């Protein structure tokens, strides 16, 4: 299976190194290199990549990948710091948890643990 890959705002040298590494284990198909972020979600939706290599800008955090992942839940986002020092993989995965003989209390605890409840106290 070919992995349709898009590179976004990443230095060419770093992107080249990462792609070379990935190609040693995956059938990477580089379909687009985007140097800017204008209407990124829409452009990605049009391209429908399997993998997005997202280069962070200075002072940016990897949280910028979350809304993109929400709009492209089938894609994986490999987010890299500008110098490649750090990386984060954002992906959505189907998750199944068996709940045998659960109590009301346990059910509530399991569900509340799935959500960030810190905002509810406001």
């Amino acid at each position, binding site marked *: 299976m070919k992995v349709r890959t898009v590179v976004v705002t990443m*230095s*060419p*040298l*770093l992107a*080249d*190194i*990462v792609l*070379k*590494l990935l190609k040693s284990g995956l059938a990477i198909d580089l379909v687009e290199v985007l140097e800017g972020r204008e209407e990124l979600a829409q452009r990605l939706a049009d391209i429908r990549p399997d993998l997005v290599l997202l280069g962070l800008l200075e002072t940016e955090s990897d949280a910028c990948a979350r809304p993109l992942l929400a709009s492209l839940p089938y894609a994986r986002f490999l987010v890299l710091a*500008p*110098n*490649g*020092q750090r990386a984060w993989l954002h992906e959505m995965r189907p998750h199944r948890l068996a709940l045998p003989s659960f109590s009301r209390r346990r059910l509530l605890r399991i569900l509340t643990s799935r959500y960030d409840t810190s905002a509810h106290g406001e």
Partner: protein
Amino acid sequence: MRVDGVRRFPVSAAVLLGLGLGAFFDGIAFHRLLQWHHMLSSWYPLSSIDNVGLNTTWDGIFHSAGYVLVLAGDCDWADSQALDGVFAASTQGCDVVHMAGTAVRLNSILVRLGMPQQRRTASSVSISRSREMTPSMDGTVYLPEANNGCRLRLLVASDVRFVRESLGDILGKSGTISVVGRCGGADQVLAQSQALQPDMVLLDAAAPGGLSTVRQIRASSAGILVVVFALIESAETVLTWTEAGASGYISNTAATADIVAMITEISAGRQACSAAVVAGLLRRMAETAAVSRSHEPGPQALTRREAEIARLVSSGMSNKEIARNLRISLATTKSHVHSALCKLRVQRRGQIATWMHARPAES
């Protein structure tokens, strides 16, 4: 047969003992052992090479870059392990030094390995890292091409592990570069540079304290070139790194496919750079020249009397003649001449004349 594969010795002891083992193989004369020992110690600073392993088998000892491999005495070159050992050592950046005695055999091995061999006499040989043999030494040394300056010995330095690993692999596969080490962190880079004495350090521009690292490498080993990679190319960044001592750079827009060629070019003294960088460099040169000119001593630096004396000095007059001409004492004349010399930052009267002739209009 492993005679002593575990114990480690300082290089001097290792060499002597190693040659002693050579004698075990070949019956080499003791004076020759001392001669070789002297020769090796002139190539390798003994203080910088500790813990050289000593082994009479071919496996194990070669698998660490930076070893000095001394082949002393006769060995069984029909042994495939020996061939593999020599090959592995040379590709991993070891200096393979073979002393006369079995040279013909080693030569034939290099041919069999497909490695170009070179024969040099003691008076002309220079091995990798530009170590010159002592001219008075007698004997012949055969060196594999890989360690004779044809393969660039490179240390890859980046704090980012996957970057240094990936670059090391890419560059190591080229036929012209031998990656002798990969490391991250300024301390490691300095230590490895000292220990391995590579021809070039390829340093990540994003490495913390990179500029200081370059300065320290250049200060401790001026022969090591430092090339910065993944540099955001601008006249300012290029100048900053160059002033720190970098010999070249690879911009962050380069493709990995081009890096080998770029490194080769830089090691040959050539640097590809953008027109914007060239323009910036020219601008900086012009600014520097202007600043330099403004700091040069001018005629305004001299008092009227000093300028007058400088003019007479430049006309060839002695102090006595000047004193007579200006109707001042000899001591006063000497004082003015001394003051003019100081202000013009020159040491001899002839230089005052040169300075005056160079600025006839201003003077």
